């Protein structure tokens, strides 16, 4: 019996205008998006390769010993998943200047095309989250109320078929009709993507893509169930669609966007300016202490050239103390920001769209966790570079200490041809798939919950539905 109902629903949908529109929209949007984003990825790949060569050459051209303290510019490895999920940044490539002492300089992005930041990218998350979810509503809004209006439901239920089977059949048939064009378009888009030579797929990317597709199905199922639920609570199809569109506007277009703003009013974070000021004050104090200590030493020893190993050790200790204090301020700020982010995400998760978006970002290794991992890796590299710089300059420092800070040109000559070809390389790999899946399971559970709630709501409403 169930199969009959599913077949009937499926055939109904396949012959409808909405199915044709869904096919057209899914194909058009997914293929266009795939082409554009993959080509963009290709361009970014050549830029990345060029940048790496450029930075390597720049390093090899350095000759002076102290140039090792200037640090190195590293490039962020590209993420193939950015062809599907754009992520948090406008640009796919990024060059960061790393200096010892945890100094990271990220480039500002206002030199590029100013029209780009005004429009969100049409990536997989946007297509599924906004466009296909709207189509899901169009597929489900008149499943009950439309048939009630036209009188077909009355006929259907006059047979000895239990209501829950009818509802289940409607759900399965309708959902299959919705995801058929979506799946075909997705596969075609993937195929198109693989035609580009720059795209090199690996196991991680394939598994992530599969997981992303399943996540999309879960999200669409939730929206479709919502459509069915509202349909089973109204008597006219026009009322259903009105209510559904208004709910959709509120929960997909408005709530996730407004949540961070609302939360930032209640859970504020210190401004960049105040943090900068605090840190500058600490550095200023340290600088003055260095000067004072130097002067005291000079007075004590009654001469000017007092720079020796003992003094250097004292300065180093003071510097470590200062950096620990600065780090504490950073850590405090990070903690407060995390607090605000957690609350924003919590409030925003009232909308299933947020769960879908955040989980997709994490699956594509383009989300918040990835950002933190990346900055941590950069900071670790900065420390590594600091150690390398120290080693390289060990001889130089020794000679400087021997000559009490006074270096003649002849002495400097031996340090004017430093070889930096053995410098450490920045290695960064994206999160393994297992970690990504572990990261997203709360959002997945939430989406499952939405599915259950809406379907149960539809079931309870339909069982009592008056078909007269």
């Amino acid at each position: 019996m169930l199969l009959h109902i599913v077949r009937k629903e499926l055939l109904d949908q396949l012959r409808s205008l909405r199915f044709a529109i869904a096919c057209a929209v899914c194909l058009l949007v997914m293929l266009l998006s795939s082409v554009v984003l993959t080509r963009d990825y290709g361009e970014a790949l050549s830029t990345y390769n060029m940048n790496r060569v450029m930075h390597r050459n720049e390093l090899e051209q350095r000759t002076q010993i102290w140039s090792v303290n200037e640090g190195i510019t590293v490039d962020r490895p590209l993420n193939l998943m950015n062809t599907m999920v754009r992520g948090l940044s406008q640009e796919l490539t990024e060059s960061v200047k790393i200096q010892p002492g945890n100094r990271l300089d990220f480039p500002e992005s206002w030199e590029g095309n100013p029209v780009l930041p005004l429009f969100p990218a049409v990536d997989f998350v946007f297509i599924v989250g906004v466009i296909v979810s709207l189509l899901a509503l169009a597929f489900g809004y008149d499943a009950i109320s439309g048939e009630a209006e036209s009188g077909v439901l009355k006929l259907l239920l006059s047979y000895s078929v239990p209501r829950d089977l009818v509802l289940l059949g409607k759900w399965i048939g309708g959902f299959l009709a919705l995801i058929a064009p979506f799946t075909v378009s997705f596969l075609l888009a993937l195929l198109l993507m693989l035609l580009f030579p720059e795209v090199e797929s690996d196991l991680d990317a394939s598994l992530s893509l599969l997981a992303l597709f399943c996540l999309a199905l879960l999200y669409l199922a939730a929206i479709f169930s919502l459509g069915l639920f509202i349909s089973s609570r109204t008597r006219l199809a026009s009322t259903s669609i009105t209510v559904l569109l208004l709910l959709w506007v509120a929960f997909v277009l408005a709530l996730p966007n407004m949540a961070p703003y609302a939360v930032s009013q209640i859970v504020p974070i210190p401004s960049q300016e105040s943090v900068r000021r605090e840190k500058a004050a600490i550095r200023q104090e340290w600088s003055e202490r260095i000067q004072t200590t130097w002067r005291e030493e000079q007075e004590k020893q009654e001469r000017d050239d007092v720079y020796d190993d003992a003094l250097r050790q004292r300065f180093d200790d003071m510097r470590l103390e200062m950096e620990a204090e600065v780090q504490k301020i950073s850590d405090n700020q990070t903690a407060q920001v995390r607090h605000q982010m957690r609350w924003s995400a919590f409030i925003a998760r009232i909308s299933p769209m947020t769960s879908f978006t955040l989980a997709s970002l994490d699956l594509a290794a383009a989300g918040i966790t990835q950002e933190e991992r990346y900055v941590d890796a950069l900071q670790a590299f900065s420390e590594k570079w600091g150690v390398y710089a120290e080693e390289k300059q060990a001889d130089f420092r020794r000679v400087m200490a021997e000559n009490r800070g006074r270096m003649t040109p002849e002495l400097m000559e031996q340090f004017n041809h430093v070889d930096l070809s053995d410098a450490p390389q920045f290695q960064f790999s994206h999160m393994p798939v297992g970690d990504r899946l572990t990261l997203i399971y709360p959002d997945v559970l939430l989406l499952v919950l939405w599915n259950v709630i809406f379907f149960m709501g539809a079931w309870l409403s339909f069982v009592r539905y008056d078909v007269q």
Partner: protein
Amino acid sequence: MLLLRIIRKEIVHNVLSFRFAVTYVLLFTLVVVSMFLMGSQHRTKVDEYIQAEAQFASLMDELAAIPDANEQFQKVTQADLPGARAPRPLAILARGLEGSLPTQVSSRSRFDVKSSDARLGRNVLFDVFQTPDFAYVVNIVLSLLALLFVFDSICGEKEQGTLKILLSNSIPRDTVLLAKWIGGYLSIATPFLVATLGGFVYLSVSGALELRPDDVVRFALITTISLLYVAVFFSLGLFISTATHRGSTALLLSLLVWIVWILVVPNLAPITARLVAPVPSRQVIDAEQQAIDREAQLLQDSIRERKVYGDQEESERIQQDAERKRRKLDQFYNDRMTRQVSFSQGLARLSPSASYLFAVTRLAGTGPVLFDRFRDANDRFQKAQDDWRKDLYRSGNVEATRTGPQVKDKDWFDPDSIPRFQIYSESTGQAIDAAMFDILLLVVFAVLFFMLSFAFFLRYDVT
């Protein structure tokens, strides 16, 4: 008059509908909440700006209080005298690019960099979803609501059978259509205006928006353009309604058009333009300029080693040559970027959504032109700072000695002479002129769709 009577019938019918009630509540909530949230954020940004200015003032006081003039000179020349950028008040309505530009510029380096604090020290969730400003609510939400309102205006009445009854009276069809347009439009424009006015009152009373006459005029203009934008979609919905015979068909077509025209076209345009008209990244340009400088340096070094008479001229020639190459490179980059930007805008303008956004952000002063003005202001600021520092030496007040610079006049330090960062914004008249193309495009769309609905309705089969 007959027209007025039908208009009244339309308005009453709309106002009493369930759709109107729910739309009204949603619209009102969204507009007011949006203004509240963006207003509060603006206030936070203004506080930060005031803090930055206060910080600068206290730095000045600190430097002025240094007793030893030589030490003071050293500290002043080494200090970073940053410039702060004031947040644009109308970013409350259309945030545009306001959040993409730094709020502080350093006086010591032209290239602004972000530290890892700035990178991680903000709530990244703000970047995940689009800013829910007034422009977003109108652009995305109100356009959908307008379509939702009017999609079954003609075909729905036909389905119910009331249209044929209406037209069985001796009413010209154009009057009916006009009345439907006016009645329906008023039904949606009025709640929108009320909500906007409510938002405006809140912003003025809470102090988030200063009541400068210029800002009020721009606010009014932005509201007017928003009403025009609603008219475009209202006409579009009416046209779809006259082109179909069933409400469900009209609804699906409206959704299709909305998806493609609002969600797809304007969002794909800029990234497509980037592929069609690529520009080398700023880093590559900078690297090439550094290579030019290095080459010039090497040539000048080799000249210095020669120590032949007349080399001064050659050295200067090399310098000028390098300058010229750098300028050419800058020009090349700017030209290519301008080409890409105009291509992006042209392609995006296929959708009225982009036209609306460009017009509104222009009036709010937060559009693409803000990047240019910021860059100009930054260049001016850096140059003024350089000149100021050079003048300190050239003024004759300071003598360079072996122990360091010696200041002759103890009262040399004048905090007011320090160049400040200032972005010149265009006048309201200039902004209107610049936005006129987009405004006219919206008018054209509105008129086009109305004419199409007119043409289709005259032939509409009401049986």
